[in-house]
Protein backbone atom coordinates (compact mmCIF):
# COMPACT_ATOMS: atom_id res chain seq x y z
CA UNK A 1 0.00 0.00 0.00
CA UNK A 2 1.03 3.60 -0.58
CA UNK A 3 -0.60 6.68 0.90
CA UNK A 4 -1.34 9.50 -1.57
CA UNK A 5 -2.09 13.06 -0.44
CA UNK A 6 -3.18 16.19 -2.31
CA UNK A 7 -3.23 19.70 -0.85
CA UNK A 8 -4.75 23.15 -1.37
CA UNK A 9 -5.80 24.03 -4.96
CA UNK A 10 -4.75 20.55 -6.08
CA UNK A 11 -7.01 18.90 -3.52
CA UNK A 12 -9.88 21.06 -4.73
CA UNK A 13 -9.23 20.34 -8.44
CA UNK A 14 -9.03 16.58 -7.86
CA UNK A 15 -11.89 16.53 -5.34
CA UNK A 16 -9.88 14.30 -3.00
CA UNK A 17 -7.45 14.91 -0.13
CA UNK A 18 -5.97 11.48 0.41
CA UNK A 19 -6.29 7.86 -0.62
CA UNK A 20 -4.54 4.55 -0.09
CA UNK A 21 -3.74 2.39 -3.09
CA UNK A 22 -1.66 -0.69 -3.83
CA UNK A 23 1.55 0.33 -5.53
CA UNK A 24 0.63 -0.45 -9.16
CA UNK A 25 2.59 -3.24 -10.89
CA UNK A 26 5.69 -2.00 -12.64
CA UNK A 27 5.68 1.44 -10.92
CA UNK A 28 8.96 2.20 -9.17
CA UNK A 29 9.37 5.96 -9.40
CA UNK A 30 7.57 9.27 -9.25
CA UNK A 31 7.28 9.83 -13.04
CA UNK A 32 5.67 6.39 -13.37
CA UNK A 33 3.26 6.94 -10.51
CA UNK A 34 2.28 10.40 -11.77
CA UNK A 35 1.58 9.03 -15.29
CA UNK A 36 -0.47 6.19 -13.77
CA UNK A 37 -2.62 8.75 -11.88
CA UNK A 38 -2.92 10.96 -14.96
CA UNK A 39 -4.38 7.99 -16.84
CA UNK A 40 -7.43 8.11 -14.56
CA UNK A 41 -9.14 10.88 -16.55
CA UNK A 42 -8.64 14.29 -18.09
CA UNK A 43 -8.93 16.17 -14.75
CA UNK A 44 -6.10 14.11 -13.27
CA UNK A 45 -4.09 14.39 -16.48
CA UNK A 46 -4.34 18.19 -16.53
CA UNK A 47 -4.04 18.84 -12.81
CA UNK A 48 -0.88 16.77 -12.33
CA UNK A 49 0.69 18.23 -15.51
CA UNK A 50 1.36 21.56 -13.72
CA UNK A 51 5.14 21.94 -13.73
CA UNK A 52 5.06 24.11 -10.59
CA UNK A 53 3.79 21.26 -8.39
CA UNK A 54 5.98 20.00 -5.58
CA UNK A 55 6.12 16.40 -4.44
CA UNK A 56 7.07 15.13 -0.99
CA UNK A 57 7.76 11.48 -0.23
CA UNK A 58 7.50 10.57 3.44
CA UNK A 59 7.16 14.28 4.20
CA UNK A 60 10.41 15.36 2.54
CA UNK A 61 10.48 17.31 -0.74
CA UNK A 62 11.91 15.07 -3.50
CA UNK A 63 13.30 15.52 -7.01
CA UNK A 64 11.06 14.71 -10.01
CA UNK A 65 12.79 11.35 -10.65
CA UNK A 66 12.52 10.04 -7.05
CA UNK A 67 12.00 6.34 -6.36
CA UNK A 68 8.65 5.18 -4.93
CA UNK A 69 8.54 2.12 -2.64
CA UNK A 70 5.70 0.18 -1.01
CA UNK A 71 4.72 1.88 2.27
CA UNK A 72 5.61 5.39 1.09
CA UNK A 73 3.50 8.49 1.70
CA UNK A 74 3.49 10.57 -1.49
CA UNK A 75 2.08 14.10 -1.48
CA UNK A 76 1.47 16.57 -4.33
CA UNK A 77 0.96 20.26 -3.70
CA UNK A 78 1.24 23.71 -5.27
CA UNK A 79 3.98 26.20 -4.26
CA UNK A 80 3.68 27.03 -0.57
CA UNK A 81 2.38 30.40 0.62
CA UNK A 82 2.71 30.38 4.40
CA UNK A 83 4.31 32.94 6.67
Amino acid at each position, binding site marked *: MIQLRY*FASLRESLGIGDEQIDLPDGIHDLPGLTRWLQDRNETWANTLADSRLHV*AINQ*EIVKPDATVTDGDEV*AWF*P*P*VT*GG
Partner: protein
Amino acid sequence: MIRVQTEDFDPGVELERLRSRNKGQAGAMVSFTGLVRDMNEGDTVTQMTLEHYPGMTEKALEKIEQEANERWELTASLIIHRVGPLTPNDNIVFVAAASRHRKQAFLACEFMIDTLKTNAPFWKKESLPGGTRWVEPGTD
Protein backbone atom coordinates in the same frame (compact mmCIF):
# COMPACT_ATOMS: atom_id res chain seq x y z
CA MET B 1 10.84 25.44 19.79
CA ILE B 2 8.16 25.21 17.11
CA ARG B 3 4.37 25.23 17.36
CA VAL B 4 1.55 24.86 14.83
CA GLN B 5 -1.82 25.85 16.26
CA THR B 6 -5.30 27.15 15.45
CA GLU B 7 -5.43 29.35 18.57
CA ASP B 8 -4.03 32.86 18.63
CA PHE B 9 -0.65 33.52 20.25
CA ASP B 10 0.64 36.50 22.22
CA PRO B 11 3.98 37.88 20.96
CA GLY B 12 4.50 39.57 24.34
CA VAL B 13 4.15 36.32 26.26
CA GLU B 14 6.49 34.57 23.82
CA LEU B 15 9.15 37.31 24.02
CA GLU B 16 8.89 37.39 27.80
CA ARG B 17 9.37 33.60 27.92
CA LEU B 18 12.46 33.93 25.72
CA ARG B 19 13.77 36.69 27.98
CA SER B 20 13.14 34.87 31.27
CA ARG B 21 14.86 31.73 29.97
CA ASN B 22 17.78 33.89 28.90
CA LYS B 23 19.05 34.89 32.36
CA GLY B 24 21.43 37.58 31.13
CA GLN B 25 23.25 35.61 28.41
CA ALA B 26 21.73 37.25 25.34
CA GLY B 27 21.91 40.94 24.61
CA ALA B 28 19.53 40.87 21.64
CA MET B 29 16.12 39.46 20.77
CA VAL B 30 14.65 39.97 17.29
CA SER B 31 11.08 39.01 16.46
CA PHE B 32 8.98 38.89 13.31
CA THR B 33 5.18 38.89 13.49
CA GLY B 34 3.21 38.19 10.31
CA LEU B 35 -0.34 39.58 10.18
CA VAL B 36 -3.31 39.05 7.85
CA ARG B 37 -3.57 42.06 5.56
CA ASP B 38 -6.96 43.47 4.56
CA MET B 39 -5.89 43.89 0.92
CA ASN B 40 -4.00 41.70 -1.54
CA GLU B 41 -3.36 42.40 -5.22
CA GLY B 42 -5.80 45.32 -4.99
CA ASP B 43 -8.69 43.27 -3.59
CA THR B 44 -10.32 43.48 -0.17
CA VAL B 45 -9.67 40.37 1.90
CA THR B 46 -12.45 39.49 4.35
CA GLN B 47 -11.07 36.18 5.61
CA MET B 48 -8.08 33.94 5.13
CA THR B 49 -7.80 30.19 5.70
CA LEU B 50 -4.46 28.53 6.32
CA GLU B 51 -4.19 24.91 5.16
CA HIS B 52 -1.13 22.83 5.99
CA TYR B 53 0.32 19.33 5.76
CA PRO B 54 0.19 17.98 9.33
CA GLY B 55 3.34 16.08 10.18
CA MET B 56 5.43 17.49 7.35
CA THR B 57 4.80 21.03 8.60
CA GLU B 58 6.33 20.30 12.00
CA LYS B 59 9.32 18.56 10.40
CA ALA B 60 9.88 21.49 8.04
CA LEU B 61 9.73 24.06 10.85
CA GLU B 62 12.06 22.01 13.06
CA LYS B 63 14.55 21.75 10.21
CA ILE B 64 14.43 25.52 9.63
CA GLU B 65 14.97 26.25 13.32
CA GLN B 66 17.79 23.71 13.52
CA GLU B 67 19.55 25.19 10.50
CA ALA B 68 19.30 28.68 12.01
CA ASN B 69 20.89 27.38 15.22
CA GLU B 70 23.70 25.76 13.24
CA ARG B 71 24.43 28.91 11.24
CA TRP B 72 24.21 31.46 14.05
CA GLU B 73 25.00 31.43 17.78
CA LEU B 74 21.54 31.65 19.30
CA THR B 75 20.63 31.35 22.95
CA ALA B 76 16.98 30.71 22.06
CA SER B 77 14.69 30.55 19.02
CA LEU B 78 11.01 30.08 18.32
CA ILE B 79 8.65 29.55 15.37
CA ILE B 80 4.85 29.62 15.82
CA HIS B 81 2.45 29.32 12.85
CA ARG B 82 -1.32 29.38 12.95
CA VAL B 83 -3.63 27.30 10.76
CA GLY B 84 -7.36 27.46 10.10
CA PRO B 85 -9.63 30.49 9.54
CA LEU B 86 -8.24 33.99 10.23
CA THR B 87 -9.47 37.55 9.72
CA PRO B 88 -7.57 40.74 8.77
CA ASN B 89 -5.01 41.94 11.35
CA ASP B 90 -4.92 38.49 13.00
CA ASN B 91 -1.53 37.07 13.91
CA ILE B 92 -0.38 34.41 11.41
CA VAL B 93 3.21 33.67 12.30
CA PHE B 94 5.78 34.57 14.96
CA VAL B 95 9.51 33.98 14.61
CA ALA B 96 12.06 35.04 17.23
CA ALA B 97 15.79 34.64 17.81
CA ALA B 98 17.91 35.60 20.83
CA SER B 99 21.67 35.94 20.67
CA ARG B 100 24.58 37.64 22.39
CA HIS B 101 24.97 39.81 19.29
CA ARG B 102 22.23 41.70 17.49
CA LYS B 103 23.47 41.02 13.95
CA GLN B 104 23.20 37.27 14.56
CA ALA B 105 19.69 37.64 15.97
CA PHE B 106 18.58 39.70 12.94
CA LEU B 107 20.13 37.29 10.43
CA ALA B 108 18.66 34.21 12.13
CA CYS B 109 15.17 35.70 12.44
CA GLU B 110 15.10 36.84 8.82
CA PHE B 111 16.49 33.48 7.63
CA MET B 112 13.78 31.57 9.51
CA ILE B 113 10.86 33.59 8.12
CA ASP B 114 12.32 33.69 4.58
CA THR B 115 12.88 29.93 4.58
CA LEU B 116 9.48 29.24 6.13
CA LYS B 117 7.86 31.21 3.29
CA THR B 118 9.44 29.02 0.63
CA ASN B 119 9.84 25.63 2.35
CA ALA B 120 7.08 24.98 4.89
CA PRO B 121 3.86 23.37 3.59
CA PHE B 122 1.28 26.04 4.31
CA TRP B 123 -1.24 27.40 1.80
CA LYS B 124 -3.34 30.54 2.13
CA LYS B 125 -6.84 30.82 0.71
CA GLU B 126 -8.41 34.27 0.68
CA SER B 127 -12.10 35.14 0.89
CA LEU B 128 -12.87 38.22 -1.18
CA PRO B 129 -16.28 39.90 -1.60
CA GLY B 130 -16.64 38.03 -4.92
CA GLY B 131 -15.51 34.56 -3.82
CA THR B 132 -12.36 32.72 -2.76
CA ARG B 133 -8.89 32.27 -4.27
CA TRP B 134 -5.63 30.57 -3.39
CA VAL B 135 -2.86 33.06 -2.76
CA GLU B 136 -0.15 33.03 -5.43
CA PRO B 137 3.43 32.76 -4.13
CA GLY B 138 5.15 36.11 -3.72
CA THR B 139 2.01 38.23 -3.95
CA ASP B 140 1.21 38.70 -0.28
